[in-house]
């Protein structure tokens, strides 16, 4: 039920959404989230994502299990890339399927909040003036208090 993929290769968001939402007659609601490399300043050359092989899969698995414990999920998918990504590239996605929309929404939102600050990924942005590690936001840590 829980599928987790950590990969350097690109994934096709549309194809993954279509496949995830494949004909099942017990699913009433599917929610997907896709994170994209955003260029605020117009001079982002690329983003490098580092991760902790082994712990990453383990941490994502624990987060997904916790979501499945809290909400009535029929399916749950997490894909996260690492390595060098161009602006506009898809970084990651989560998808949740449930009988009802409230569960699918809450679980996807929860997965994103925990993934942000509990899965071992680090982003480094390379711009004209040099490379810099992205700092964690206080708001990301604060978001966990919602659950």
């Amino acid at each position: 039920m829980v599928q987790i993929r950590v990969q350097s290769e690109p994934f096709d968001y549309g194809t993954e959404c279509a496949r995830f939402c494949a004909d099942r007659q017990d699913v009433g609601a599917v929610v997907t989230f896709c994170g994209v490399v955003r260029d605020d300043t117009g001079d982002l050359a690329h983003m490098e994502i580092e991760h902790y092989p082994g712990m990453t899969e383990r941490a994502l698995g624990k987060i997904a299990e916790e979501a499945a414990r809290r909400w009535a999920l029929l399916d749950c998918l997490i894909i996260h890339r690492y390595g060098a990504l161009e602006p506009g590239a898809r970084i990651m996605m989560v998808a949740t399927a449930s009988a009802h929309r409230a569960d699918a929404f809450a679980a996807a939102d929860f997965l994103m909040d925990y993934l942000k600050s509990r899965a071992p990924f680090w982003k480094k942005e390379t711009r004209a003036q040099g490379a810099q590690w992205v700092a964690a936001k206080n708001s990301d840590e604060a978001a966990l208090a919602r659950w």
Partner: protein
Amino acid sequence: MKLEVLYFAWVRERIGCARETIETDAQTVNALVDELSAREERYALAFSDLSALRVAVDQDLSEFDAPLTDAREVAFFPPMTGG
């Protein structure tokens, strides 16, 4: 005991390596941090503000006062920024 110690993101860059095997008797993460910091300036620098760091023991997020009994792998890194 022998410990695999891993560093990620700017901790890796500051210490200058991604992983190393350390022979230590440290009983807690804090003791390991102190031992490494005493060893060389680059460790002292990387570990100077522990509030800016996170630690995982055997691939589980831990506290700095966690015991290292039976631990095989300890990783140091900044707060995570996935998603």
